[in-house]
């Protein structure tokens, strides 16, 4: 095993000019553009605005969701509000407007926020974990070893942590791998096609706000349209005349009638989940309801207090994004990327990156990059082992 000369980057050297060559190669060395980490992200996600916005690969029915909301609200403001303002009060468009704004903003935030994706393991980490797992049958390539699990005790409950073959990590508790997005997501709730993204730790509160405000909006529009039609029928010659005078209301009525039940139901369900500090995933699988016949099971993550559960889920601290989308991929020919002696065959040039968080919405760091890492970057240039 050869010993390679390994250069470390001194963190102070990044700030002050030094005689030694900077970590980022100057344009005359190579004209290769510095790539951001989102460009080499291994999961099935799509990125927009240079990594600021993240969505799942399939947008699902997000355009339909947005379209329905915009259409129904638009029709409401154009056709129903003038009548209601004249006959009732001008608060109606105001309330409707506030609800509409809440719905749209929370929908966009749910769809475009990183739900809590866990970056995949670096090759050394994966090798380290492999070493710890006893696996005598690894020689046969066709035989897939049984799922590896690790047990931990949380709050006097035994919780099994599963090994994720794709991400090469032991999943933390409450983390699940989404096959649609091909990522492990922390506190995975579900993959929602209506918003076109996974719902996880970081965007659950946005999702909850979205469905609650949407149920209020739908119910509000339904109520207002019904009032509008009722008032018109009284003034005119009946319901048919009212519908003919305002056909858009009929459409709104139909849309709202069919959606209000499912949305209200969903809000109710998620309110229950929030109060019990459960995820949809856990509820469906019956992880803590004792379905497997074990009566001692209870939710180890619950604080056993309604208020505390609600507050911790909805008002807890906002965790940072763990995938540093807008950070720069350490360049191949910068000084610190000499191949490491750990015995990894250089089969593929698969660069794994993880990086500092704190990126959403921030302006990008100035060009001489690798500055996203305050620590000297030990970047590995090889790839997947096991």
């Amino acid at each position, binding site marked *: 095993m050869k010993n390679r000369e390994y250069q470390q980057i001194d963190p102070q050297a990044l700030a002050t000019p030094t005689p030694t060559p900077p970590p980022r190669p100057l344009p005359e060395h190579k004209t290769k553009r510095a790539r951001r980490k989102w460009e080499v992200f291994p999961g099935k996600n799509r990125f927009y605005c240079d990594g600021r916005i993240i969505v799942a690969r399939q947008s699902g029915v997000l355009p339909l969701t947005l379209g329905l909301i915009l259409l129904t609200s638009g029709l409401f403001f154009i056709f129903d509000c003038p009548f209601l303002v004249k006959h009732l009060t001008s608060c109606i468009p105001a309330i409707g407007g506030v609800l509409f704004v809440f719905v749209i903003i929370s929908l966009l935030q749910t769809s475009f926020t990183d739900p809590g994706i866990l970056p995949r*393991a670096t090759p050394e*980490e994966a090798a380290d974990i492999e070493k710890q797992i006893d696996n005598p049958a690894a020689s046969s390539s066709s035989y897939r070893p049984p799922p590896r699990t690790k047990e931990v005790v949380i709050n006097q409950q035994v919780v099994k942590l599963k090994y994720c073959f794709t991400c090469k990590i032991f999943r933390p508790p409450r983390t699940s791998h989404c096959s649609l997005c091909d990522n492990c997501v922390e506190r995975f709730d579900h993959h929602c096609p209506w918003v076109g993204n996974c719902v996880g730790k970081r965007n659950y509160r946005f999702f909850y706000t979205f469905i609650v405000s949407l149920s209020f909006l739908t119910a509000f529009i339904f109520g207002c349209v019904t009032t509008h039609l009722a008032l018109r029928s009284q003034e005119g010659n009946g319901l048919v005349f009212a519908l003919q005078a305002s056909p858009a209301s009929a459409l709104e009525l139909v849309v709202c009638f069919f959606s209000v039940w499912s949305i209200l139901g969903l809000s109710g369900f998620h309110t229950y989940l929030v109060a019990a500090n459960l995820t949809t995933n856990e509820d469906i699988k019956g992880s803590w309801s004792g379905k497997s016949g074990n009566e001692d099971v209870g939710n180890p993550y619950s604080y056993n207090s309604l208020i505390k559960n609600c507050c911790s889920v909805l008002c807890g*601290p906002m965790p940072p994004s763990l995938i540093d989308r807008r950070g720069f991929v350490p360049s191949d020919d910068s000084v610190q990327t000499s191949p490491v002696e750990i015995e990894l065959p250089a089969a593929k040039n698969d660069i794994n990156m993880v990086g500092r968080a704190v990126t959403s919405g921030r302006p990008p760091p100035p060009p001489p990059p690798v500055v996203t890492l305050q620590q000297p970057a030990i970047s590995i240039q090889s790839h997947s082992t096991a």
Partner: protein
Amino acid sequence: MATEFHNLQELRHSASLATKVFIQRDYSDGTICKFQTKFPAELDSRIERSLFEETVKTLNCYYAEAEKIGGQSYLEGCLACATAYIIFLCMETRYEKILKKISMFIQEQNEKIYAPRGLLLTDPIERGMRVIEISIFEDSGSTSSSSSGSSPSSSTAQ
């Protein structure tokens, strides 16, 4: 034999990476970010146990403070909800502020304690908050087999 480096600069000029040790997460308290304080065998000859434990305990305290659910986080959460979460785009959250403090702390620890002993801590945020990666360097002058001379036993983590 113990390798002596006097600072990060020397480490940079004359060191080569030998191996890496990973300190795994401790999930016994739930999903909060907490690292195991178990002392890995590979560091036995490189650093005193107490120094290592002190570093990990301090890191755990920082993370506990960041994830604490209390008055300030409620205020932040409620304010964010009232503004339809737009405030997250404008303001730095408490968690982010503490992450910066953690970065500074790790840098300081590296400079004062770990680099002189030929070790380097990597900020957990750069590894998805899964592990604390400790890189062990050997003096390139001593070219004996540096790769896992002490085969990493499975006593690490778990």
